């Protein structure tokens, strides 16, 4: 067994088989995994907000879907992994509190998921599988060896996509 590499909130990292990569307790944030099934390399970014252009502060690119995915692509490209060989799996984007208002800021999970899908589409990266939405937190682990994404949630059986 390899090591488990941790990605924090508003953080990103890459790994290669036999190592695996994880992010714990995703709520409304999204865990985006980009992987190359052939070379068994991958990267993960834990994004919090959909769009950096709407916000004044962006010292940390990993915080936003647009800049986070770009940063991850750059990092992978430096490791010799081309965009064209990448596929994606995404999870998270839950609505943690059952608000019944139409308040925009509370649907940030949903907006995050939409932003991530659109950005990946613009890069021409196919989303092979996803587990987004609902109202519960998720811990995700990606194993580049098998391209499997494990999704764990409290009181729910393990899900593999």
């Amino acid at each position, binding site marked *: 067994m390899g090591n488990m590499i941790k990605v*924090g*909130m508003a953080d990103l990292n890459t790994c290669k088989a036999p190592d695996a990569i994880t992010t714990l*307790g995703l709520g*409304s944030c999204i865990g985006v995994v980009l992987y190359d099934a052939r070379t068994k390399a991958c990267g993960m970014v834990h994004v919090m907000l959909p769009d950096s252009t709407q916000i004044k502060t962006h010292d940390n690119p990993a915080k936003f879907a647009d800049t986070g995915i770009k940063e991850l692509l750059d990092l992978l490209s430096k490791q010799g992994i081309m965009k064209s060989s990448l596929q994606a799996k995404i999870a998270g984007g839950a609505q943690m509190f059952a608000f019944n208002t139409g308040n925009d800021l509370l649907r940030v999970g949903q907006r995050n998921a939409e932003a991530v899908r659109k950005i990946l589409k613009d890069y021409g990266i196919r989303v092979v599988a996803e587990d987004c939405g609902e109202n519960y*937190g998720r811990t995700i682990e990606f194993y580049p060896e098998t391209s499997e994404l494990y999704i764990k949630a409290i009181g729910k059986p393990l899900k593999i996509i």
Partner: protein
Amino acid sequence: MSHRLEEFSDIEFDVLKEISNIGAGNATTAISQMMGIKMNMDVPVIKFLEFKELAESIGGAENTVVGILFGLERDIDGMMMFVMDCDSAKSVISGILHVEEPADAEFSEMGLSVLQEMGNIIAGSYLSAISALTNLSIAPTVPYMSIDMAGAILSVPAIEYGKVSDKALLIRSEFGDDTMTVDGYFILVPTLDAFEKIFASLGLSTL
């Protein structure tokens, strides 16, 4: 006026700490009254944490916690959250209902309504302290509760903070009596405009 939290002056930051402190103290007193016991409270610990560290500081991202969230209305926009780990929440419930709660992340129907009510009390007492200090009218919305992984619960205030900062302000308040200890965490998330209003109301104009 600074446009981000990191640029707040020392005085502004101290004011923020003090407001949070008073709010947390008031809320703790209210909870102990609700439980009908005399509680000791430690001085709250206030930390400015990176998002990465936020969940770690309350027992890890996968630790099951109870989060109670409410919005702020009227003079100030924003939200505020109270977080407790499951064990603390169960101590509070059994302190009031005098019955044992089920194990793990399960709560009884009555237990949940105790927590909900606790949320109301915390919201009211916390905000009335800030209101009294700043002379601003602040009203909480109905509280919303969620029991889940700490990371997931905290993502909600963290995302709000993320719009103005790369860090969030976390207040840890520990209270209890001889038989139990409750670890509670407060996260106040005003909008940047709200921060300015709070500072202005206290005569701290930095324009």
